[in-house]
């Protein structure tokens, strides 16, 4: 049985989607901006009203309390948002190995969010999401603000995470090379439909 499944899932601007992703697999998603990629990810995280059903393992979206569902379906939006002054205030706990893999140390957590670069923010947002151990990663251009070295690091980290935690990922990326590198399968959005990318 598929690990993650969309059944007649309809978000704004797209036709109903049927899709399944196995544990440990990553499916990439591409398409012109404004075609509804981000809205699809938001709908899967249940942040926007939508139709159809989504399942992660044995969890059915409509029957799972929303906070519980969103802990399992971690969404990393293209722009990260922070509500407190210090990074530490956003984290329930820490994980030194994961932090080091992203190029930070425990001391970094005392930094103020307003002084971070957009790349640092993006990597820390990924950290913030991963320590919650989501079973499905919804990644909206997670390396958009990163240089090549950091981007490679993030790619490897996510692939490693998928393998060790048996999670699935839906990865939106504009970069065809990156899609080749990280994806097991890929889809293009063309006039509201998901078309397999060859």
């Amino acid at each position, binding site marked *: 049985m598929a690990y993650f499944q969309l059944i007649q899932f309809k978000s704004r601007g797209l036709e109903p989607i049927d899709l399944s992703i196995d544990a440990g697999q990553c499916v990439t998603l591409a398409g012109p901006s404004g075609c509804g990629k981000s809205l699809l990810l938001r709908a899967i*995280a*249940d*942040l*926007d*009203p939508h139709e159809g059903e989504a399942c992660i393992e044995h969890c059915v979206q409509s029957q799972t309390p*929303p*906070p*519980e569902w*969103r*802990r399992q379906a*971690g*969404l990393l*939006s293209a*722009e*990260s*948002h*922070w*509500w407190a002054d210090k990074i530490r205030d956003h984290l329930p706990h820490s994980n030194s190995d994961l932090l080091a893999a992203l190029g930070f140390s425990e001391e970094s957590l005392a930094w103020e969010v307003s002084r971070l670069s957009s790349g640092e923010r993006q990597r820390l947002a990924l950290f*913030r*999401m991963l320590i*919650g151990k989501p079973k499905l990663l919804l990644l909206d251009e997670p390396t958009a603000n990163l240089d090549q070295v950091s981007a490679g690091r993030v790619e490897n980290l996510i692939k490693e995470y998928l393998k060790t935690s048996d999670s699935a990922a839906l990865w939106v990326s504009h970069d065809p090379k990156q899609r080749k590198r990280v994806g097991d399968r890929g889809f293009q959005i063309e006039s509201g439909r998901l078309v397999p990318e060859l």
Partner: protein
Amino acid sequence: MNLIPLTPLDLSIAALLVFGLAALSWRMRLGVERRLLVAASRSVIQLTLLGLVLKTLFDQSNPFLIGALSLFMLGMAGYEVMARQERRFSGFWGMGIGTLSMFISSFSITLLALNLVVRVEPWYTPQYLIPMLGMLLGNTMSGMAIALDNLTQSAWQQRGAIEARLMLGHTWDQAIGDLRRRALRSGLIPIINSMAAAGVVSLPGMMTGQILAGSPPLEAAKYQIMILLLIAVGTGLGAIAAVSLGAFRLFDKRQRLRLDRLK
């Protein structure tokens, strides 16, 4: 001491000054002259009508008429709270939140005060009920409007931060908690300030009125103290009710932030 009656001529002197201010606003291009004149005319008409209505009401002391006037005042207050919102809730909730919270706070506190504090017989004696209800509605209204406006504005501006918390699995209650606290604080600060300034900086309206009408100053002070304290409680309860209802309405049953419910 007897009250010196004001003639229409006396009032027209004050009105002339308002016209002067409007002219000044026009000259300085403040752009508020129209609103100033409309608001001034409204207060002249509304207060004259109220005077006439209260005169008949006091003569008759009919509980149904008193009830009808109270409900009318409540409805108007609910409308004013809504009208002061930059981003108001659409549909029924726009007016519903203000009216309902005002009902909870001002009505219950007025009834409480009339029964337990002033102890008039019967409790709906219009000479007490209408002025006290009016004072409470008028003063709690602004605190609630500020608090609710603060909540909806900051939810609009901090949409990303609220949704970031939802994405991490926080409940709607946690995600809006900070904003709710800040909104409540902003609504309560004016009444806290006016309590602190009462008698030192400002001579509150009710006390002034009673003194002009010939009451001993100490009696007037006691009434003013009661009203100020009640207003503080009413504002607090009303703001808590309005902000809680508002925060609740900002999310749907799947705990999604629904800013589309604001206009």
